């Protein structure tokens, strides 16, 4: 019957079903052979004509599958760093591995963006470049200005005309469509990863503190080195001893006074953190406004140095304020250590996003509306400097945070010990850099190339630093839940913020009049509307104009779409609620069945003993 079922499925489903069966390999191969024979028999019962057709189809599908397998084999051989990830997982476990996997995943975004931008925007521009009469001295690598101003790195270099080499290539449309389509693809892939991660990892977040799960699901099969295994075993035994000896603090009855005191402390710390964040943002804003005023009477070198002050200050704030937050956090007491981690992550991400937010406000409000000649270039250079300085600080932070700390921990005060790898801080740094890079794509299309280089170097440096300086983490770190949280943070404040900045730039800001692909237009989106206008003159493509005006351009359409989505969401939510109730009922049913079973077994035993006693009585 199994074979009949399998024969009826399509080949892909059949493969999946066979792969999932928990039998030995020999049995699986036998099943597969039988299924194939069955399929042959079925197809053989038709006439010979149809037999030929199905044979052809079967052969083509087989060769297509072989080709797909070859392709996937090739792609998996391109996988970067497989061995390194294995070694890291073997020595430090899944939690630290999740940071490096996240880094690799962000790297694919940047590689994709670089390929897209380079092929569709940069290469056409390189065919017809403008003149560049500036000289190159080494400072450009740090400040991004100077020679780089007139290269393909920045927005200002791109022409607004149609490049005619052999065929005409409309640079304006290419620029806006490439960047638009890239962001749409990023959006969908982020939503997909987030949904998949959420589905796998948030099935039932409660009851993890149960010792059953701790015992049977906690062993990390990834770890393959002797010392980490021993360390993990001793950690586990300590944890188990602690949890046995402690009073369960799930039910902590605090008096009203204590509860109020705790809430007051939480409030004070939150106010302090938010106040610090606000102060930092104000400082950053005033510092950046200073940058806008040209410095007369100072040499070129001092000007460049002044330009670097803002990025250095921002990076210092990003580095030091989290430590202040940690200090504030020492005052607080949490019921679950998990909550402390979440609160720390939220405060830090709030700080980073606020700083980026205030910088975007400065860029879009002050720089874009100032009468500077090429404001997009200025923003591009600012972002370049921010990213470069942040990269340098990341390397320095790795050096001081881990290397020097290890020296201190092992030579000077032995009590401190070897540092642990701080996963949360490092991942938030990655999210911060990636947000900046995404904002920078519009103003400096080759920004992803810089990100690729910096991520490569960061991976290697962090790996070396990890291997030499850190020890495996001692506390329980729910890797999959934290990864879901980080992907969500990447989507919600980070990517959505980038989309809003892009929206404001494209719809509400006038492009500069003398540089860039959109020079002279009243707004960037006018390039697209102008193109739709020209399409209207061709009778064959009037439908494009119709779609643009009535679907994308009209408010009613989005309103109706939103209502439909909300209704569907509500329906799914109700279905989920219903299923939860059903799960509860079924679970109670299982418990009842167990009780019934015990009752019947007891009764059976009772009857058997009474039967045994009864004949004995008769005999007596």
């Amino acid at each position, binding site marked *: 019957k199994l074979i009949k079922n399998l024969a009826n499925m399509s080949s892909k489903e059949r*493969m999946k079903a*066979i*792969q*999932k069966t*928990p039998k*030995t*390999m*020999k049995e699986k*191969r036998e099943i*597969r052979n039988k299924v194939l024979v069955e399929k042959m028999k079925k197809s053989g019962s038709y006439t010979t004509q149809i037999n030929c057709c199905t044979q052809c189809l079967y052969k083509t599908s087989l060769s297509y599958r072989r080709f797909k*397998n*070859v392709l996937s*084999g090739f792609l*998996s*051989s391109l996988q970067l760093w497989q061995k390194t990830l*294995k070694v890291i997982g073997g020595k430090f476990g*899944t939690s630290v591995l*999740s940071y490096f996997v996240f880094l690799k995943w962000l790297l694919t975004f940047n590689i994709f963006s670089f390929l897209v931008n380079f092929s569709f925007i940069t290469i056409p521009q390189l065919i017809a470049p403008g003149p560049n009469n500036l000289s190159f001295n080494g400072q450009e690598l740090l400040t991004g200005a100077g020679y780089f101003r007139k290269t393909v790195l920045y927005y200002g270099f791109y022409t607004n005309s149609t490049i005619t080499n052999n065929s005409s290539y409309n640079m304006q449309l290419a620029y806006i469509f490439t960047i638009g389509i890239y962001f749409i693809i990023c959006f969908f892939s982020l939503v997909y990863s987030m949904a998949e991660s959420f589905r796998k*990892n*948030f*099935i*039932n*977040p409660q*009851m*993890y503190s*149960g*010792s*059953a*799960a701790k*015992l*049977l*699901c*906690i*062993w*990390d*099969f*990834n*770890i*393959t*080195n*002797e010392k980490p*295994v021993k360390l993990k*075993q*001793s950690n*586990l*035994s300590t944890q*188990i*001893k602690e949890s*046995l000896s402690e009073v369960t603090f799930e039910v902590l009855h605090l008096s009203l006074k204590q509860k109020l005191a705790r809430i007051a402390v939480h409030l004070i710390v939150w106010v302090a953190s938010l106040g610090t964040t606000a102060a930092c943002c104000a400082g950053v804003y005033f510092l950046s406004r200073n940058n806008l005023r040209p410095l007369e009477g100072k040499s070129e070198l001092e000007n460049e140095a002044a330009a670097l002050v803002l990025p250095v200050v921002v990076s210092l704030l990003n580095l030091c304020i989290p430590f202040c937050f940690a200090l504030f956090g020492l005052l607080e007491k949490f019921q679950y250590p998990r909550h402390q981690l979440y609160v720390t992550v939220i405060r830090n991400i709030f700080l980073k996003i606020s700083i980026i937010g205030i910088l975007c406000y400065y860029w879009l409000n002050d720089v874009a509306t100032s009468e500077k000649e090429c404001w997009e270039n200025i923003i591009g250079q600012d972002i370049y400097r921010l990213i470069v300085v942040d990269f340098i600080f990341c390397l320095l932070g790795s050096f001081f945070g881990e290397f020097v700390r290890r020296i201190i921990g092992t030579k000077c005060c032995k009590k401190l010990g070897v540092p642990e790898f701080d996963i949360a801080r490092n991942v938030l740094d990655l999210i911060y850099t990636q947000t900046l890079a995404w904002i920078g794509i519009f103003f400096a299309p080759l920004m992803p190339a810089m990100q690729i280089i910096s991520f490569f170097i960061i991976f290697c440096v962090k790996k070396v630093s990890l291997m030499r300086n850190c020890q495996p983490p001692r506390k329980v770190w*729910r*890797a*999959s*839940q934290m990864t879901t949280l980080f992907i969500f943070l990447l989507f919600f404040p980070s990517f959505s913020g980038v989309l809003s900045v892009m929206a404001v730039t494209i719809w509400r800001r006038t492009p500069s009049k003398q540089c860039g692909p959109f020079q002279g237009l009243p707004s960037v989106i006018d390039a697209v509307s102008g193109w739709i206008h020209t399409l209207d003159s061709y009778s064959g493509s009037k439908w494009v104009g119709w779609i643009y005006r009535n679907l994308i351009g009209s408010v009613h359409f989005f309103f109706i779409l939103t209502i439909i989505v909300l209704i569907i969401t509500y329906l799914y939510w109700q279905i989920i609620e219903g299923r939860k109730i059903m799960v509860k009922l079924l*679970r109670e049913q*299982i*418990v009842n069945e*167990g*009780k019934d*079973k*015990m009752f019947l077994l007891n009764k059976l035993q009772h009857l058997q003993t009474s039967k045994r006693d009864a004949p004995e009585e008769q005999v007596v």
Partner: protein
Amino acid sequence: MGNKQTIFTDEQLDAYQDCTFFTRKEILRLHGRYHEMAPNIVPMDYTQDPDVKLPIQLIINMPELKENPFKERIVEAFSEDGEGNLSFNDFVDMFSVLSEMAPRELKAIYAFKIYDFNTDNFICKSDLEKTLNKLTREELTAEEITLVCEKVIEEADMDGDGKLAFADFENMISKAPDFLSTFHIRI
């Protein structure tokens, strides 16, 4: 495309690809690993499907398994005879289930087999005690071990028979989202 390998026929590679989560290249690489464990016993040419089994002592010395406290149970769970002697089929099967593409249900089935030390299809108290000893390297006292095992059974046993059936185990696994990523051995 390059040098034609003669370790497996095409049909065999297709069969392996259909029945496991590995690609051709990975299967050939696995064969290389299997072969290098005992080059004089394992033939290079597998086209005739030779019936060769490697004993458990060789397999638990693989670097991926050497330090794992459950190495013997893992190999025994995947062997056909239950003694831990793996043919190449079983070897590929083992790493396929332990790879990251295997679904949760399949991993749960084999994890249950691994933790079931006395192979009676239930995880009873003695199985849990042995698991706990392996996890903590016997650093706990006998009292603590009994306490923990009782707590586990109390929490996870739904039908009240004092031992964990596969359904109880699967229910517990569903509450631990890390299971998929920790029950994973890279090869």
